[in-house]
């Protein structure tokens, strides 16, 4: 469509952008993460209006638009709701593929937590009971929990 085409050798400039960040967590995510580190415990936030307990803590309830401030203790055990076995590399992956991530309904929470499931996909099914495997060295990060293991019955 353009007129007077310029004749040139096709050239592609290669480069990358590497930007360091320091993300302030805010009170909800911050207390959740430091509690993982210091108390080896999962906490959630309860909405003062609708009573929904969210994990990870939802600082502002979307439905009620209330700023949540009531932290409640949540179990580190729960139920596997759904999962996927990731077989190709993805950005910021938690492990080399294949790895499994899933939605976990922790006892005491009304929402689902996304985390690693430390088991082969073939051994998994909806409704299995799972429990957190904690890291010994913790730094206040969601991966202070290495992942969730199936609770063996009996």
């Amino acid at each position, binding site marked *: 469509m353009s007129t007077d085409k310029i004749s040139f050798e096709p050239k592609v400039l290669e480069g990358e952008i590497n930007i360091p960040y320091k993300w302030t967590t805010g009170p909800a995510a911050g207390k959740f993460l430091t509690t993982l580190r210091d108390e080896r415990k999962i906490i959630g936030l309860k909405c003062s209006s609708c009573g929904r307990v969210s994990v990870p803590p939802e600082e502002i309830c979307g439905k009620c638009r209330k700023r949540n401030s009531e932290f409640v203790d949540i179990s580190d055990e729960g139920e596997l709701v759904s999962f*996927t076995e*990731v077989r190709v590399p993805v*950005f910021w992956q938690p492990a080399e593929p294949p790895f499994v991530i899933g939605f976990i309904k922790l006892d005491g929470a009304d929402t689902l937590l*996304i985390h690693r499931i430390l088991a082969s996909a073939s051994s998994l099914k909806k409704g299995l009971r799972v429990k957190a495997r904690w890291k010994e060295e913790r730094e206040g990060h969601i991966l202070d929990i290495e992942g969730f293991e199936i609770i063996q019955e009996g």
Partner: protein
Amino acid sequence: MKKIAIVGYATSPFKPGIRDIHLGELVFNTVQEALKNTGMSIEDIETVVDASCDIIDGRSISNTFMIEPMGAFLKEEAKVEEDGAYATIYAYMRLLTGKFKTAMVVSHGKISESSPDTYSGTIADPFFMRPMGITALTSTALHVSTYYGHYGIDEKYAAMVAVKNLGNAKLNPRAHNKGDYTVEDVLNSEVLATPIKKLDSPPVTDGAAVIILAVEGEAEKITDTPVWIRGVGFINDGFYLGHRDLIELPSLREAARRAYAAAGIKNPAEEIDIAEVYESYSFNELMLYDGLGFCEKGEGWKLIEEGTTCRDGKLPVNVSGGALGANPLMARGLVNMIEVATQLTGKAGEHQVKKDLKTGLVHSTSGFCFQSNVVWILSNEKG
């Protein structure tokens, strides 16, 4: 309310990697093509809205270097960091103010210059989702596992969507990912993240799409075949996937409800003649049938099994081949709009649907797992 129509459009070629021309030329060429198609000159365009993405372009405020190729030089221009079907909302609103008679929406992206995975991975938050490897692929896999698990839907129905869309793409010159496949081919293709397989997944696509809008009175002067906007709805859900209702699809349902209310549509499955939806992955299309009210909740699989949404069905969906046929990020929503406009005016050539068309639906989405949705209702009748 003032009536507004699509009066012109153009797309660039869609390819897995456009290396011979740079982004500016891609946009310039597509804008020129849209103007030529409508017999307009750039002076006739009063305002411009750009849909592009900083991460894809590798520049902050990525419209700053696109002013000249878009033809927005010393005009009222703004950028939307969303798909083109969202940028169209702003162009539409500008025309509704009465200040402008014409507006152009320009959407573009050369995702092959970086990677789709980087783009979608940076949508995730740094505290909870990024460390889990959440991207478009993995979030969709979790969503599918949840929704399909809840309703007990077999993955073969998603494979049937892939077969349909890749087959539809064969007739569409705008699509580049196409072919004759069987359900078995899809089910046996490489697993990327269970249950999503290679043939369920969109290709890497570079490209641009442009539409021109005009107000009633002006639109009829520009073209004999304006396509009228009869309604729009757009809704946003919350962010963290585990906090959302991934089965009820509230954002999609409400966006559709508002678009139908604006257009006076009571029964979408009966009144909509054709739909182009942003499925991204084959599995999503069945959820879209549900959220858009084309079927009862959780029964999208019936529409593909009965052939309702096939090319010659009662409600053809993605006759273009959808995002499986070509997935130009930031431009796909406008491609959907252009496809429906082309079909409604009988200009789709070899892939024209062989039935009378009056009302079309255009859907686009943004964020993970249908967080945000926009639904447009278009018609070849002014109403």
